[in-house]
């Protein structure tokens, strides 16, 4: 969808020629988010701005949908590409509605159609249209402005979106929320996105692929998990951080690491039956669930050995459970917080679905490493 071919940008300065972007080639398939990542001055923003020709390449080609961008009129090209910048850049003299409709207006859309579209887009980011359409940017909070900045880029429904550190100026809590909102929206709209960031955590979270830059050169272009699991050189290893393995935990959902193990047992199960089940499944504990199937505790074999009666008499409370669609980072955090080596997993209705153990997680990270290097 977006293809960069030997893209190069050199600037003439007083101290000679500086190469800002050095023969960068990469390809982003339609519907994916590619994060351009690197320290400041690495050429990521220059690369981004060459795509909509805010900066003219010195050499090399850019293809969008297979068509050389040289072939476009520059104004037409820019109108067909959504653009979001860190400073948001909402026009303070225009209402939210007019801001969203800037590109549709430039394209000469019917007014009723573009205004209807503005209301739909506002609703998409949970801003009540009737209350926000006629407001001015100064009457919005920073987070609300950034949401409007993003939907403004989507107004004319461009297939390609360029985002230059779009959430960089927002406080960490709101940034997480807006990132999640954007990913949710992206699930529906499937734009091809180039996203500049200097934050590895953001890159891992947002990117289908990450392109890591240093001194104008593309050092590694890979999936987030591969970048974290197999940094190609020392620079990338240090850039992604010594805790890169922990970062990988965010990439895996609990559902993917969960093992079925033994089924949960009812409160009325006899101790002897429970011990036999543990033996069969070679596991030292069993989750106890109530009549509806919600986990309500556990029993361990050392508590049951040689005891009479039913399991409800020996049951212990579960200090925590984890949702299937949470990531492993949350799961590990819960394990550490409650000094557990395993957690019971529940689905969205709170029903017991299986367990995830520390051993499973360690093994999973290792498996991925081995299968990737093959």
């Amino acid at each position, binding site marked *: 969808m977006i293809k960069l071919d030997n893209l190069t940008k050199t600037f003439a300065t007083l101290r000679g020629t500086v190469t800002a972007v050095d023969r960068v080639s990469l390809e982003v398939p339609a519907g994916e988010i590619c994060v351009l990542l690197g320290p400041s001055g690495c050429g990521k923003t220059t690369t981004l701005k060459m795509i*909509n020709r*805010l900066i003219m390449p010195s050499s090399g080609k850019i293809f969008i949908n297979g068509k050389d961008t040289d072939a476009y009129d520059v*104004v*037409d*090209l*820019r*109108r*067909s590409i959504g*653009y979001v*910048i860190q*400073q948001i*850049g909402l*026009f*303070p*003299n*225009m*209402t939210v509605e007019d801001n969203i409709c*800037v*590109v549709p207006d*430039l394209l000469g859309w019917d007014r009723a159609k573009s205004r209807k579209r503005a209301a739909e887009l506002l609703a998409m980011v949970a801003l009540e249209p009737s209350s926000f359409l006629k407001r*001015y*940017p*100064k009457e919005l909070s920073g987070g609300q402005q950034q949401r409007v900045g993003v939907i403004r880029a989507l107004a004319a429904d461009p297939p390609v979106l*360029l985002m230059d550190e779009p959430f960089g100026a927002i406080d960490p809590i709101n940034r997480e929320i807006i990132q999640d909102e954007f990913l949710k929206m992206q699930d529906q709209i499937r734009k091809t996105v180039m996203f500049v960031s200097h934050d590895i955590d953001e890159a891992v979270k947002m990117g289908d692929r990450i392109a890591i830059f240093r001194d104008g050169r593309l050092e590694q272009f890979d999936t987030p998990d591969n970048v974290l699991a197999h940094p190609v050189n020392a620079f990338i290893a240090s850039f992604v951080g010594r805790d890169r393995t922990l970062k990988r935990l965010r990439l895996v959902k609990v559902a993917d690491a969960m093992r079925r193990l033994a089924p949960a047992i009812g409160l009325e199960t006899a101790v002897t039956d429970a011990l036999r089940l543990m033996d069969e499944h070679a596991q030292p504990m069993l989750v106890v669930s109530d009549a509806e199937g919600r986990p309500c505790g556990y029993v361990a074999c050392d508590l049951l050995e040689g005891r009479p009666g039913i399991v409800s008499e020996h049951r212990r409370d579960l200090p925590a459970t984890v949702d299937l669609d949470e990531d492993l980072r949350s799961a590990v955090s819960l394990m550490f917080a409650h000094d557990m080596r395993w957690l019971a997993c529940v689905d969205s209705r709170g029903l017991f679905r299986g367990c995830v153990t520390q051993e499973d997680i360690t093994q999973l990270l290792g498996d991925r490493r081995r299968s990737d290097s093959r």
Partner: protein
Amino acid sequence: MSAIAERGQAHGAFRFGLPLLIVALAALAGATGLVGPILQHWGDIVFDTQQHIVLVAISGSLAILLGVALGILLSRPIFRRAAETVLQVVNIGTTIPTLAVLALAMSILGIGAVPAIFGLFVASLLPIVRNTFAGILAVPDYLIEASLGMGMTPAQILWRVELPNALFVIFAGIRTAIAVNVGTAALAFLIGGGGLGDLIFTGIDLDDTGMMLAGAIPTALLAVFADFLLGQCQLWLVPRGVNPLR
């Protein structure tokens, strides 16, 4: 909060300031027994006020048209380097005493309304040019980048982004210029341009306080009224999103 306060103040000034001034002047004139001597010149007051308004309207309109145009031109990237030089030249029009400007205009254009209009135009040009230029330059770079990135042409950026965002500052320049213009137009009489200076200077020469006030009071009222009108334009024409008064 502050916007509301300013708005209140602005309205307060318009609502109470003007009538209060008129009442105060009327009281002063009444107390000193000058109402009669002033109103004795009613015919001249009407005639000279009309002339005064014509001088201000023509020279002011020219200064606004040319000043804004020049300010826009100087803010274009190709002229930006030359801008300071040009502004210094325009500045001369303000630095030289207006009386000298009028005298110079007279020596070139002769006597009458034409040199007076020219002199007033020159004297009120700078605040408009400077504010237009500065107002456009103050539009943040990232707004220009956003406009470019969304596919606006330079003309669209000027009309949709730069001018609306600079409009409040431009209006401030125009208000300054017109206030100066109304006051200075009283000097037009000295080169045969007419206006309320007619009554003021003749009154001074004849030591006729009534006649002098018959020129001075309408001049003051005219200045206040012109500023009030422009203030209202500024209040309602500048978009709410970039208008600190609203």
